[in-house]
């Protein structure tokens, strides 16, 4: 009896396995060729996976095209955009079917827009009338379904940003937009976006100023930021001030909030680098009590050779530390920010301290460099030794 039952069960299991392999082959007659958001044009995007950038671009228009190497592409549009046209082609054994477009907010999961187009041909264009993108930053998920002899669907993401992404996020990296749109979801103003991105970087970040992390070739004119390696760090987001400032530039600029730049407290030529400093001379400074990310509220004073932050003109955003009065969110660089950051500057000559002066004392080295800030040179190349 038991043996008989076992044989029967084995037979059923085999049948299920055979059917599960056989069934998909019935749907060979029905398949997508493409489903693309043909109009309006998406901002160009980069995957952020390899160099050179020309070999790393996201194929446009957004949506599915089975003739592409990577068939499905995300898109990126300005808030409030409308006039979307879906171009599609399917293969099916019947002449007409229904197209259903569902758009939902990928972050909250809420349905944003839904429309069914019944009895449409297998190839054509559909004006997605009534689809107006939100007035705030978010990520939308498009699902386009075809119901003909059977039902099939395809999905792709659309990043909704305040304005065209700015350099060095021009084209913006998909893996940066995933983070920036997520953190700044719901923000509709440049200030709001820059502030929440800075605040979130501080909350989620691991600030470690003990070593050089993902920047190289640092000069007064700029530096190379190994963004792919930074994004792959097992403790992401982790780094020293260079990395945090450069990444904040990428975050804010990717959502088109501002064209921010990175800047340092003063020129490298006046930094005292410690015992290995070639001429043994230059400046360092001690910070006021600050709460670095992440410290759980305990504050400390750092002995800095220099510090790097993110600027728009002379307004500073800084996600590395929280000051006694809060996180620097658009603070005036040469007054509020400097006084919050610096307790005193110290000058060294021949590896010996020669003077210690206050942040506003005459002769202090504060001289934000370069004067207009710099755009980090970002790369997906392997981090060099």
């Amino acid at each position: 009896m038991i043996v008989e039952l076992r044989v029967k069960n084995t037979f059923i299991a085999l049948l299920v396995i055979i059917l599960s392999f056989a069934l998909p082959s019935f749907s060979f007659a029905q398949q997508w060729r493409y489903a693309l958001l043909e109009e309006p044009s998406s901002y160009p995007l980069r995957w952020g996976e390899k160099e050179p950038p020309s070999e790393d671009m996201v194929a446009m228009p957004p949506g599915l095209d089975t003739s592409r190497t990577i068939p499905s592409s995300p898109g990126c549009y300005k808030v409030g955009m409308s006039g979307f046209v879906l171009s599609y082609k399917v293969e099916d054994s019947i002449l007409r079917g229904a197209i259903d477009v569902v758009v939902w907010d990928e972050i909250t999961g809420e349905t944003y827009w839904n429309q069914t187009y019944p009895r449409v041909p297998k190839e054509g264009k559909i004006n997605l009338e009534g689809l107006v993108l939100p007035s705030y930053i978010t990520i939308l998920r498009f699902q386009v379904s075809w119901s003909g002899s059977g039902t099939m669907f395809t999905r792709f993401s659309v990043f909704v940003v305040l304005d065209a992404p700015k350099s060095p996020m021009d084209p913006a990296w998909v893996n940066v937009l995933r983070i920036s749109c997520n953190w700044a979801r719901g923000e509709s103003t440049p200030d709001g976006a820059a502030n929440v991105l800075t605040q979130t970087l501080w909350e989620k970040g691991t600030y470690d100023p003990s070593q050089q992390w993902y920047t190289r070739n640092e000069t007064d004119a700029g530096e190379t930021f190994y963004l792919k390696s930074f994004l792959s760090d097992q403790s992401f987001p982790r780094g020293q001030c260079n990395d945090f400032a450069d990444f904040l530039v990428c975050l804010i600029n990717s959502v088109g909030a501002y064209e921010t730049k990175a800047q340092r407290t003063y020129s490298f030529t006046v930094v005292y680098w410690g015992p290995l400093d070639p001429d043994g001379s230059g400046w360092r400074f001690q910070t006021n009590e600050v709460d670095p990310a992440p410290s759980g509220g305990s504050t400390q004073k750092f002995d800095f050779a220099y510090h790097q932050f993110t600027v728009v003109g002379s307004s500073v955003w800084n996600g590395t530390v929280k000051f006694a009065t809060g996180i620097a969110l658009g603070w005036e660089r040469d007054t509020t920010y400097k006084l919050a950051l610096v307790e005193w500057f110290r000058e060294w000559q021949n590896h010996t301290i020669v003077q210690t002066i206050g942040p506003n004392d005459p002769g202090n080295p504060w001289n934000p460099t370069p004067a207009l800030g710099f755009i980090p040179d970002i790369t997906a190349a392997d981090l060099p030794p």
Partner: protein
Amino acid sequence: MMKKEVILAMSLMAVILAAFGQFRESPPPREVLKEVKSNGEKFLEGRWEGIYYKEILEPRKTDVNAQMLLDLIYGKDEIPGFLSTPNPFNGLHTNIVILNSWSRIDRAYRSFERVMIGRTERSLHEIDVGIWVMPNREEALRRVQEAIMHAAMAYKHRELPSGLPLGERFWYWEVPNTIRFLLGRVVAWVTWYSMAKPDPFVTEALAWGIEYRIQQHPKLLGMARKPVTVLVSNRPVAQGKAIALAGVTVAPISSLSPAKVTLQTKRTEKEWVVTASLDGRWVKFKAFSWDMETEKGKVKLERPVFPYKGELIVPLRQVAEALGIKVQQKGQTIALLPK
């Protein structure tokens, strides 16, 4: 009699091999990796179970391989209270990159305890272990000095919490609690990021454990390692596993088993404790601790206890003597003489 010994030796060998296989982490399988070309070079690249992996295929000029790097680092669950869980943003806990110019393995271990920072929930503690293997010692030293010199925070030399010398050279920061050291052509570091208070002695114990692992690979040291021979009743034990760490011999606690020491291990996700006993005497020690409990009270250890391939490594002489075993050392040979 002879036959019995052979059977015993074979059984022991089988146990050791099984343990070795069990505790040796394997690199990502070839089939989950893709061959990619970039700037005229060919790589294997991919992600697998929280590991980002990239390895140069052509032109290949390095002698480093993934297994070698994995052998240098703690397993995902080897630090009690911590686990290598994937980063919520990129799904990674480990990076393995093998290039011609350098190779590295970095791994994060996150505490089970979590805390809210603003709207963000994150681990209360995170330990990060990184190991770079450079083509030679000079390159390794140059790289570590450059990384420190290009740091925004000024470096000021400090002694390690124990006051001991680690590697050939070491660098120590209290905040964030970081130890970096150079040994042969390897640069290793251990950092304890904490939203409460890190334990600098545990950070140091972790670093000593990495030094032990590096010493298991003479190819990385750029010099021949002087082997330490441990004899129990004139028979060698723990071959290749007994190593001198800054002058003190450490070895797996199982080295004492042939001396009729009974071992009892209690390993949970939060603690790893071994009790060793012999003729009524006992010692008890925890992974990454600097002391042991005995029936006479706490005893400070000369070197910390740390895990390696499924068991704890201990300062041999101190533990043996606490169990009443006589220890005689002559040059690189240590003889344990049970009563």
